[in-house]
């Protein structure tokens, strides 16, 4: 997500390989001559055969119909794009990931992602040490965006601070999600080094 994440070294604890649950993609149970690789069903996830297992089908990067071959037929194109989009919509609760820190009683929020989360967490501890009720949401995915959760947070807090290592990109999305329920303040830095926690802490104090 940013250069610091790209370069940071940390200790990670990997689970024992035996404890890892492997979920393979759904495989077809239809015979090869009846198989339609992109046939829609309620799950919106068509079973996908492995190459080499007797299903000689076609995969293309072009817009395709349910047989997998390219198509210029507009109803088929709409059906394919609707399925892809609906799939995201249907499973967005499983896809969207974020971590909350002390949001239960928060009066001031921080919404952050990437390495700025570390600066934010430090600032949060500084603020809590002074009795300021600050809570934080660290987004682990940015798309789809946790719009609903940020809307709820915006109704709970007076201000949301958005620290970013750029001139303000995700802040627009946070503003959109907050729908005017809280004031959005930005902390930006383009110097090539991380945001000092003091800068975020100073912004928190402006909100009090």
């Amino acid at each position, binding site marked *: 997500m940013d250069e610091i994440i790209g370069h940071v070294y940390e200790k990670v604890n990997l689970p024992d390989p035996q404890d890892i649950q492997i979920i393979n993609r759904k495989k077809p149970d239809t015979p090869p001559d009846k198989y339609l690789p992109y046939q829609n069903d309620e799950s919106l996830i068509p079973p996908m055969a492995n190459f080499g297992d007797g299903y000689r089908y*076609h995969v293309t990067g072009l817009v395709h119909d349910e047989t997998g071959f390219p198509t210029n037929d507009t109803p088929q194109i709409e059906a394919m794009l609707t399925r892809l989009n609906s799939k995201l919509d249907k499973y967005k609760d499983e896809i969207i990931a974020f971590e909350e820190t002390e949001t239960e009683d928060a009066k001031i929020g921080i919404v952050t992602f990437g390495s700025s989360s570390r600066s934010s967490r430090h600032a949060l501890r500084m603020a809590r040490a002074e009795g300021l009720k600050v809570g934080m949401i660290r987004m682990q995915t940015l798309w789809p965006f946790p719009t609903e959760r940020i809307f709820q947070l915006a109704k709970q807090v007076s201000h949301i601070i958005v620290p970013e290592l750029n001139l303000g990109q995700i802040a627009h999305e946070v503003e959109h999600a907050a729908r005017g329920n809280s004031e959005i303040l930005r902390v930006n830095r383009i110097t090539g080094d991380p945001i000092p926690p003091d800068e975020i802490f100073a912004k928190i104090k402006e909100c009090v």
Partner: protein
Amino acid sequence: MDYMPYLRKDKFPHIWCEGCGDGIALKAILRAIDNLKLDKDKIAMVSGIGCSSRTPGYVDFNTLHTTHGRAIAFATGLKMARSDLHVIVVTGDGDATAIGGNHLIHAARRNIDLTVLVYNNHIYGMTGGQVSPTTPMGDFATTAPYGGLENTFDIAGLTIAAGASFVARSTVYHTTMLERIIQRAMEKRGFSLVEIMSPCPTAYGKINKRGAPKQLILDQKNQAVRIERSKSMTQQELQGKIITGVLIDRELPEYIQTYDKVIAQAQIR
């Protein structure tokens, strides 16, 4: 031989123009596969974008039509996951040497067991007749209205230098040779590339006033020189000629075999 068992008959007619060499190349591929008696379920044909890259749609194998330039990258992944498959890449000069140039040289350098068939028609045909890395210097294209300014890639030479096991070249006029060298490329373990000279009367021939489609094929007959004969010819005599035949066939370590050894070693540890 009967071609029908290898074709997806409902996908015809094909998109290739009258006088295009791509259909002749397809025929040679199918003959080579038939000679080798390969199981259709164990053949994967991978392509990128362009006229040549539409080939997989017409054949009854496991077929993968990928994004522009990335056929060899996808094929590498497929071969690593399923080394039991014969992975054949069908690509063009633009796809393989411009946008996919890095994939080509590094796959050759790794010497991974793929059969790469590059149809060289000296131009981007499908996408609008733009100049390609193999457009002869000075020849015209829609993006070279005053003639191409750049040197021309020698696809076979580039692949030999990058470290491939097997590299050959044929024109589509020389159908018997084409079939034979494609077959040898498929049999070879390691990175194998066949440069197939396939004329494009529509996008290249017309703008360069090369005459009727038939003429482009006859030109190949006149330009082709077998590698064995070329060795006794001077640089001057070889000007404008197409050197055909098996250009290199050598034994080199193959990537998947080397990789499997590393995996075995890592598991012992």
